[in-house]
């Protein structure tokens, strides 16, 4: 039941996008998100759509699989659309009772919907094609300059990858505790939201205790294997830019330039 949740939802297949350096993909995702806010005209969105479509095609991930991720945000999308549709002042198109749909509202609503869905699909291209591990690796490398400001970059990356490693273990454990408590008459299913939330307390306490115990064990095991922070540590899989990564950066720069040009001239 709980184990069905796929976090990071990496989609295993072979493609150019999969092979790209995680840093490229991270930078590209950030640039793409920024570009969505840079462009303001329809031409801009068409440009973004073309870019996104090409990326999806290159990634070899079935489009259906990608849309699946959209289901989670349908609710947010709907709220945004409704609010923009009814609450934007301007030239009235239709008016029902007290609600008025304006031309500007309609435009804004569609724009917001497009922007949001592009944003989600765009970032899911990254998470679908990058393993959580190389993602943390990429972040660590990208954020390295922050070390000057005493940001514990290596530690944060290590914490993230350990967290990812323990998600399935803790989920399994939650399942186990739940079953043990159901066997003794606990009820997680019935009642309203408050009641359900209260029923979770006896589940969380043992889970936390065991998580702490695991953390303690893991820390000891790491120390026993000579872990002493990021200093003097070598990498088994160091990140190296290949020529395809340079090309990708080039493509990205062109796309971003196009977006800016569109913003200024169109």
């Amino acid at each position, binding site marked *: 039941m709980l184990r069905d949740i796929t976090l990071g939802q990496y989609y295993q297949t072979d493609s150019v996008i999969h092979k790209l350096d995680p840093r490229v993909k991270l930078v590209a995702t950030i640039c793409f998100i920024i570009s969505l806010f840079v462009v303001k005209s329809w031409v801009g969105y068409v440009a973004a759509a073309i870019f996104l479509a090409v990326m999806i095609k290159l990634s070899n991930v079935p489009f259906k699989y990608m849309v699946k991720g959209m289901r989670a945000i349908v609710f947010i999308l709907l709220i945004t659309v409704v609010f923009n549709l009814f609450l934007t002042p301007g030239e009235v198109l239709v008016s029902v009772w007290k609600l008025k749909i304006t031309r500007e509202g309609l435009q804004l609503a569609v724009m917001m919907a497009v922007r949001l869905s592009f944003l989600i699909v765009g970032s899911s291209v990254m998470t679908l094609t990058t393993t959580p591990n190389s993602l943390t690796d990429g972040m660590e490398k990208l954020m390295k300059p922050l070390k000057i400001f005493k940001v514990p970059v290596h530690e944060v990356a290590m914490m993230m990858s350990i967290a990812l*490693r323990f998600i399935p273990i803790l989920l399994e454990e939650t399942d186990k505790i739940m079953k043990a408590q159901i066997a003794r008459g606990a009820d997680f299913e019935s009642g309203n939201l408050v009641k359900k939330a209260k029923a979770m307390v006896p589940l969380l306490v043992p889970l936390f205790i065991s998580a702490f115990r695991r953390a303690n064990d893991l820390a000891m095991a790491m120390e026993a*294997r000579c872990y002493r922070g990021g200093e003097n*540590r*070598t990498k088994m899989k*160091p990140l190296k830019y290949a020529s395809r990564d340079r090309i990708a950066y080039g493509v990205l720069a062109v796309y971003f330039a196009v977006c800016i040009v569109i913003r200024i001239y169109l």
Partner: protein
Amino acid sequence: MGIIRTDKLVFEYIRRDEEGNVEGITRAVDEVDLNVKQGDFVAILGHNGSGKSTLAKHINAILYPTEGTVWVDGMDTKDEKDLWNIRQEAGMVFQNPDNQIIGQVVEEDVGFGPENMGVPTEEIWERVEESLKAVGMYKYRKYSPNKLSGGQKQRVSIAGVIAMHPKCIILDEPTAMLDPNGRKEVVRAVRGLNDVEGITVVLITHYMEEIIHADRVFVMDKGRIAMQGTPREIFSQVEKLKELRLDVPQVTLLAYELQKSGIDLPDGILTVEELTRALLTVQS
């Protein structure tokens, strides 16, 4: 001098009540003298709370002695400058396989130790390959640890320690959480390391079957070493083992009972084959 040596090792836990007041002091390890030779397979036996895990943690410099000294390959564990050398030379495998695997892929986990030691990238790959092969897990190198069985996970943990090229491995009840099959896998892997690679093994366990192949056995009770000798010497003292609340292997127990009821059998029979042979000679 042996690779691991302890001299009058004492370790005390301070017990505290909920307010943090000292309730009392527990001696977990009490004047233990240990001397393990390079290449030996040593087993430490004892029931729960006998201090065997505490003793093990001293060898890896996770705990420091309250009194006495521990030397690993001539290095005093209290000496801070040797700390990382000691941890590299005396690798440690723990009980719970889930709580000691750090990587999300088998090969990455095995590479964790060498990465920490600052081994160059190509050499890490060589080490990972050779240590996964040594425990027979090479074909699982791309797997996620979550998809492996307990015995396989524990073998990955062992590979992770071997990749650091230790001189000895301390295994703290590596089989306690495994099913009989997993237990066999792990014990076979450990014996292989000892036989083929010549790595010194200190196996801490409470399963008697696992220590039959040991060169030397120490039995601990209440923090002290209660018995020591070869497995045969230990198992010939069935009464004393029972006193220490330890189970004797079934064959040994059967032989012992037969002996008591008047059949002329040698002391300390360890395997089924031995007993059959002995019984056949008695018959003829």
